[in-house]
């Protein structure tokens, strides 16, 4: 109950500021939070990154193991993305197996990497139909202040770019850098009232009616999208978010 009262109070506060063209933390509507990226944060991972997007703190570790390819892609490596929304990161996260929220986060981040063709999967083939590299991208929320989709995507891309294929350890020749060929970047915006806000904080997410994540590549083409939330968006609003994503995404890409 107290959560609802707080949400109402926060909503009033956020709405009042929005009507004056302001956000709680003073950002412009199309302005993401400050971003810091620390690559190679975890020694035991083949690639890793810790990303702060404002007060959202995410660690991504990439592990590579030799395994079997899928039957329909005998000459390609395998990508597996998982998101851990652990209770240490936010009061709304619960222990236990992944719930729908963390499954959605993982699948949206996965879709960006996969559909954006971030990694040249054919270069992860060791022997067609027999052995390929299985790539595990694990997203850990450390401190959650909203927009895990983008923080996770940025951290995952940074981790992939820093990753080395541990061929020597597995007795498969010399180590080589993970072949990253594209850097798809996702940008999420939420709709509150009539307003569209890029990179929402947790409070903004709580009061938002709808959310849209759009991943774009270097060319500015769209590679993945996901709408969320109980509310709706008009086709025009969707196209506005697409443009915002291309613009903000290009900026973020230059930092990854």
């Amino acid at each position, binding site marked *: *109950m107290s959560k609802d009262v707080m949400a109402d109070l926060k909503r009033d506060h956020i709405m009042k500021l929005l009507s004056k063209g302001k956000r709680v933390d003073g950002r412009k509507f199309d302005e993401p939070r400050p971003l810091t990226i620390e690559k190679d944060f975890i020694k035991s991972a083949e690639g890793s990154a810790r990303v702060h997007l404002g007060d959202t703190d995410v660690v991504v570790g990439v592990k590579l193991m030799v395994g079997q390819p899928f039957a329909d892609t005998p000459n390609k490596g395998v990508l597996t993305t998982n998101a851990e929304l652990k209770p240490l990161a936010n009061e709304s996260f619960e222990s236990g197996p992944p719930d729908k929220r963390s499954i959605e986060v993982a699948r949206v981040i996965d879709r960006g990497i996969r559909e954006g063709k971030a990694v040249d999967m054919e270069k992860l083939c060791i022997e067609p139909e027999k052995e390929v590299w299985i790539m595990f991208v694990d997203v850990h929320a450390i401190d959650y202040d909203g927009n895990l989709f983008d923080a996770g995507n940025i951290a995952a891309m940074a981790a992939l770019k820093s990753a080395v294929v541990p061929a020597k350890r597995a007795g498969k020749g010399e180590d080589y850098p993970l072949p990253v060929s594209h850097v798809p970047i996702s940008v999420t915006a939420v709709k509150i009232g009539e307003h569209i806000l890029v990179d929402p904080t947790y409070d903004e997410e709580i009061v938002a009616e709808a959310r849209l994540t759009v991943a774009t590549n270097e060319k500015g083409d769209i590679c993945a999208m996901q709408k969320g939330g109980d509310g709706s968006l008009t*086709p025009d609003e969707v196209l506005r978010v697409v443009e915002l994503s291309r613009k903000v995404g290009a900026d973020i890409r230059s930092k990854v």
Partner: protein
Amino acid sequence: MGGTPLPDGIKLIDENGKRLDGRRPDELRPLKIEAGVLKRANGSAYLEWGDNKVMAAVYGPRECHPRHMQDPTRALVQCHYNMASFSVDDRKRPGPDRRSQEISKIISEALTHVVFTEYFPKTSIDVYIEVLQANAGTRCAGLTAASVALADAGIPMRDLVASCAAGKIDDTVVLDLGKEEDNFGQADIPLGYIPRTDEIVLLQMDGDLTTDQFRTGLNMAVEACKKIYDLQRDALKRKYASPARGNDKDVGVN
């Protein structure tokens, strides 16, 4: 999505601009909707869309389980999307997987937008979607069937949600991908849309699209949703206009 070449040099669009099943780029697969097909459920709908066969049932508003999920201010719309093990070529392991959980989540959100949830605090409105035969586009088929089932259950709604996907095959933007087009195509954009208010309540996309292609696809799916919306309304009208089928589960037990 993307990349995988079609076997034997088959093209998804032939020299006459026709697709594998003979459709034009902006043509829907045949779609049939029937409302009120199940006895036990409070509301239901059966839908055949190309080679998709989907059943939707609604139970509720009823007591919300688990209890801690209860919302004192409104009903919870809980969708359970499930694919039958025999619905696809390779047997699907029964039970929820990550894909079906994600689909359940986004369909729940889309339906929540149209249900007057504030009329039924603390309750749950359970929507069960069973995909009996799958041939691409099952989430759209499921959402389309589910909104008819909700209306059939007499649950107060702002409107029906219609749903359809657009996509890209052979560098051409097309409507309503079939299975081969989905497997070997370049992009897919499932959309859930309310024509009357011009609102998008479900939207996903994967693949590779320029902004212009996306705009074209979105328009195509929006126009298709308007047609599907009419079919949904017809299905409901047919049920309630027909004295033979009638609304027999609600009348005359005594």
